[in-house]
Structures are given as C-alpha cells and as structure tokens.
C-alpha cells in the first residue's frame, strides 16, 4: 500500500522506464486518474489517452475526444492502431471488468501489453481487483491506499477555503486536522461528500465535527459484522479507579496527531469478570468518556459456514473497523468466538491467529475493548503479555457500589428514594449480588407495585431481596475460579487489594449509571 505522493513517484518511474503494463489497484478510480493526469502533466512529451465506458476514448490532458464509442474492444482496437502507428503512446483504462482471472478480456489485454512493449508504449490499468497473474506479470503493480491524513487535510482545506467567503466558517487549522482524522478510512470522494453536506447546513463551526462521525457512520452502516452502538450522554462510571486512571492517561493519544512521534495509539484492554457486573457497559462508558464512536464486532455474524468464510469475514470486519478509526471496538464475550478447541477444522485456531496478528500489527486508532466471562476457555496466546495493553478484572460490587445501584434503580423504576435505614438493610441483604441481580430484584418489586397499585411495604421489599439467589451462589464454583484467575493474572479494575479469603467479596468496583 502506498499513499498518493509515493504512488505518483512510483508511477513516474514506471512511465519513464516504459513499463508496458502499469496497474494501479484502488477503489477510487477518479483519484487514481487525477494522479495519472499529474504524471502526464510532468511528462508532456508523451501522449496519454484515457478510455471510459461512458465517454469513449479521449486525450487525457486536453480532454479531447478521439472516439465516442465506449466499447472496450473498440478502445483496444484504437490503442492497437495507435501503438502500431507511433511509439511512446500511453493508454489509461479504468472500468475494466473480468481481468482478475484468465478470461478473454484478460488475454486480450495481455496481447495488447505485448504489443505495447514492442512499440515502447504503456497501458495503465486502474482496477479494484488484482489482475490475473498471467497479465500482471507483464508489468508492475501498486496499490493506492485510501487518502492519508495529509491528503485529507489538503482536500478539506481546499473545500473549506473555497467556501469561506460564502459561508460563515469558523474552522481553523486544528479543526481541519481533527476533521481529517475523523474522516480517515473513507475515500476522498466520500470525505468531500460528507463535508460538503455538513457545510450545506449554511455554516461550519466546531460543533459540526461531531456530525462528521454521524455521516461517516452512514457510509459503513450496513457492513457485515460491524454494528454501531448508539451512546447516551448519561453514562457515568463510579469506582474502577485503576481502570479510570489508566484510561485517562491514554485518552489524549486517541485524539492527538502522532504522525511525527514514536508514540503509538493504545491498542485495547481485556475486561475479565463476573457475569452481570457491567463489563459490557464499560465499553459504552469508555466510548462516551472519550467521545468516540462505539462499534460492536458481532462475532456471530463473522462466523461463516464455509471453509475460509469466517477468516475472510473477520478480515473484512477488522479492515472496516480500521476505516472507522478513531473509534472504540467492542468485542463482547470474546471467548465464545475464539474458544480454543478442536472439532471445527482449525477455524478457531486460524481466527485466533488472525485476530492476534491484527491486534499486534494494526496502526489505526482503534481501541479494542474485549470482555470475557469464561476465561478458562480463552486461548492462552490471547492472554500473553503484550497482546492487550492491559487486562483488568471486574469483581462483584462492594457495599458502597451496591448502595449506589439500589438507589439508582429505585429512582429509575419506582421513582422512590429509599429511606436510609431500609437502604442499609438492602445493601446488607444484597451481599454477593451482581449489578444484574440488583436490577432483576428491583424489576420484580416494580411488577409487584404495578399489580397491587401501591409500593410494597418494607418487609415485602426485603423479602424480594432475600428470595433472590444471586449469581455468586448459583454459580459459586464458576465465580470462585473466575475470581481466582482474575485476581492473579489481571490488574484489578478497582483499587488494588490483597488476595481474597473464601467467601470474601472484593471492594472498589465500578458502577455504570444509566
């Protein structure tokens, strides 16, 4: 992959070397065509013709039409006559189909490339797909990457400055840089469309930066395996001091320009812990806190039924996530998708390998938040130091956090402020409850109120709490294993503490307020 300026240098070298077939792989044909036009402008002694199915064949720099016929074979026939008539001619072909395998079109191009070679000519093919090997080996190939930060900044600057006199525009250089960062991963045309649509509101101010993400989302909205998670303004995180401190030290790295530094953006965290303790909500809270869009990688959608399909879909989903950067990517219950085991023809092992490779090698500002309940089934290589930036353990809520959660749910569901005395008793009764347990019991009380038309008496409320068998009791063994594992291998998400005695609960956990 090369950016535009590197690709232009490469193209000029190929043209000067009179390479008979030059292939530019890109999903942005118009951007590649502009680049070829720039090259043609520098090599004015050479003539360049361009073919497109809509406009026929024309001289590239002047735009003069030489043949109205859009048919590709007709254009190739014209190229043949030009190559025979003179040396150093160049033909650019854009929307060529069926050249990725040995088809008649691919063979036809191969013949033309050989003719071009004998007449010191060049054929430049702009294509989204790789060429048939028999064809590509006749020349040189380059992949034109999506526009980088600098190219996007230049494009945005042009657009903003062209319209500054006509619209109230308050954007300065730093806003342009931020906009370029938000729009990274989209094509130049998509970036222009998004920004122009934002500007069409009648002005351009700092508040519009957020709108760019929204428009960018629409482009990626229907992609397989990646789903945008809507965020609310009122996510608040209580407890989890270690995690919060860790995140705050890295927040700037996700928005800063790291181009000329040796610093890398943070890769991500693994949150291990008890079911129902709000690990998943942490992902939302992080995205909300960092003001970044949150995407959920749906592993169920990624897993395919055919050999190789899952790997292909995971690759596509991760590439999409990179294009969405900067963002938070949430993988819920990662152990279910990357479970280590046999019996699936090695698909899981390949997925783990692919995922780890991406985790280690990607350079985009994609912050991964992976959550896991059953850590014992996670492949050990995923847990090796250095895969994630950090692994945090989220434990059961302590008394203080239970109090917060009880107060919150009573207010939210029953519109009732629990009296201090009752609250203290409920906190005691809910020892060993998870956040989900607390929500469930208060939901039952809400139902009782709905049926009887009045708030249950204190004794009845306490009875609801007493009757609920919490997760820590129904799954005591599993909980014990998870906690033993998490407390020895992970950093506590809350304030660090010593090892637990049997039946003891940890303190300093987190609460996600809804």
């Amino acid at each position, binding site marked *: 992959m090369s950016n535009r300026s590197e690709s232009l240098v490469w193209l000029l070298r190929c043209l000067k070397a009179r390479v008979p077939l030059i292939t530019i792989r890109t999903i942005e044909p118009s951007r590649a065509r502009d680049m070829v036009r720039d090259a043609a402008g520098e090599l004015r002694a050479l003539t360049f013709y361009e073919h497109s199915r809509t406009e026929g064949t024309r001289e590239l720099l002047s735009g*003069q039409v*030489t043949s109205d016929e859009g048919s590709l*074979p007709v254009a190739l*026939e014209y190229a043949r006559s030009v190559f025979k008539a003179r040396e150093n001619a160049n033909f650019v072909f854009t929307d060529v189909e069926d050249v990725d395998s040995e088809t*008649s079109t691919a063979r036809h191009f191969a013949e033309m490339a050989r003719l071009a070679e004998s007449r010191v000519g060049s054929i430049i093919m702009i294509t989204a797909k790789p060429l048939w090997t028999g064809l590509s080996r006749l020349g040189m190939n380059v992949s034109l990457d999506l526009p980088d930060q600098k190219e996007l900044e230049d494009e945005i600057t042009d657009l903003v400055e*062209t319209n500054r006199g006509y619209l109230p525009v308050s954007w300065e250089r730093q806003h342009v840089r931020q906009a370029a960062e938000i729009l990274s991963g989209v094509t130049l045309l998509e970036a222009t469309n998004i920004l122009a649509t934002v500007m069409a509101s009648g002005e351009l101010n700092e508040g519009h930066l957020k709108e760019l993400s929204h428009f960018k989302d629409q482009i990626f909205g229907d992609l397989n395996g990646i789903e945008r998670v809507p965020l609310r303004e009122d996510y608040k995180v209580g407890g989890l001091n270690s995690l919060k401190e860790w995140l705050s030290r890295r927040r700037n790295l996700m928005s800063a320009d790291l181009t000329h530094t040796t610093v890398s953006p943070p890769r991500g965290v693994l949150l291990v812990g008890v079911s129902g303790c709000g690990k998943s909500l942490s992902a939302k809270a992080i995205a909300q806190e960092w003001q970044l869009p949150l995407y959920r990688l749906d592993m169920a959608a990624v897993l395919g039924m055919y050999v190789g399909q899952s790997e292909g879909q995971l690759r596509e989903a991760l590439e999409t996530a990179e294009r969405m950067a900067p963002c938070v990517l949430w993988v819920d219950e990662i152990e279910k998708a990357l479970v280590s085991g046999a019996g699936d023809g090695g698909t899981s092992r390949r997925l783990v390998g692919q995922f780890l490779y991406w985790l280690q090698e990607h350079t985009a500002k994609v912050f991964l938040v992976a959550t896991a309940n059953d850590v014992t089934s996670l492949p050990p290589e995923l847990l090796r130091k250095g895969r994630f930036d950090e692994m945090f353990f989220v434990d059961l809520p302590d008394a203080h956090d239970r109090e917060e959660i009880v107060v919150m749910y009573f207010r939210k569901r029953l519109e009732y402020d629990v009296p201090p005395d009752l609250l203290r008793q409920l906190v005691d009764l809910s020892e060993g409850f998870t956040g989900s347990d607390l929500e469930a019991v208060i939901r039952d009380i809400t139902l009782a109120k709905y049926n009887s038309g009045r708030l249950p008496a204190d004794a009845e409320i306490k009875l609801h709490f007493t009757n609920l068998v919490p997760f820590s009791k129904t799954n005591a063994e599993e909980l014990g294993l998870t906690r033993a594992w998490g407390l020895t291998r992970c950093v506590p998400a809350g304030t660090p503490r010593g090892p637990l005695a049997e039946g003891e609960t940890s303190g300093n956990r987190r609460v996600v307020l809804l």
Partner: protein
Amino acid sequence: MGGQPATTYEHWVRTLRDWSVDDSVSLTGLPPLTEESLPAGAYERLINHIRQALETTAAGWVSALSKTLASIGDPAALAVDLVALRRKLSRRLELARHPALPQVLRDAFSDAVDRSVRDAQQQIETAIKNLGRDGHTPASVVDELHRVTRENSFVAVLAYTADTPGGRFTPNYRSTDPAGPDHPVPERPRVRRIIV
C-alpha cells in the same frame, strides 16, 4: 502474373483478385473508371469482377460471422469477435465506396453493402434473442450479450471513413492536435462550491 499492369482493365482485375484473398492488399492507386474508359464488353466484365470481389470478401466475412454465432456465450469474447468482424467488414466499404468508381456504381454497391451490414446486425441480435429463449443461457448473460452487440454494432462501420483516397476505412478518430480549434478547456482540479 508479374510486372506492371498494362491497361486500366488489367490494373483493376489484378488488384481485385489479390485484394479479395489478401487483407494486406490496398486499393489505393486504382485508375478512375468510367463507362467510356473501357470497351463496352470489358466494362461489363470488370463490373462482374468487382461484384465477384465483393462477394468473395462477403463470403469470407459471413463464414467468420457464422463461427462467431456458433460459439456465442462469453460476452467479452463476443465483443472482441465483433470488433474483428467490423475490421473485416470495413474492407467491403473500401471497394464499394472507392472514389475511382463511377458514382452510379458507387451508390449501387454502397447500398448493397449498407443493406448487408444492417442484415448482419439483425442476424446477430436475433441469434442472441433465440439464445435467451432456449432457456440454457442465464438471462443476465443474454442481457450482457445484447449490450455487447449494441456497443459494438456493425452499423457503426457505415460511419467509417477512408484514411486516404481509396485507402482503408477506419473509425472516424478525431485528431488530438492540442492546437486545434475544437479543444475543450483541460479539466482542472475540482473544488466544490456550496450553494448558499
């Protein structure tokens, strides 16, 4: 038969004989032909030679067309075949519209070639239609074949012009002289202006 042709008749006949079997033979340089330029019998015989040459060329072309029709299936291959057929078809125009022919003959031969070109186009379109009816070829392929026959229509050959008097008939490619008067303004990098 070697050496320089001695008469107009001989020049024409010898060239026609070679031209009808060899694609590389050119018709440039044929002497102008009028009814008065030859004895009455010789003129009639020469017209027959011309008709014969056109028929020989047409027969070769029809044979190539039949091969194409027999193997229709791959739209891209069909497109390449059609363009090659157009190149061969243009040779008949070289003779039918030759400037050395009397106008009346030129009109008659041109009309005949014109009709035969349109018939051939019709023939190939019908063949593709039938292909769609037999149910063995997917509708999307039939649509693609139709598109290809329209994009590479034989009828376009009728708009070809001779590169030199009596020479090859080629598509009417326009000159790309940058100093020419009809040149559009070169494209400039586009920056969008928002409509306020």
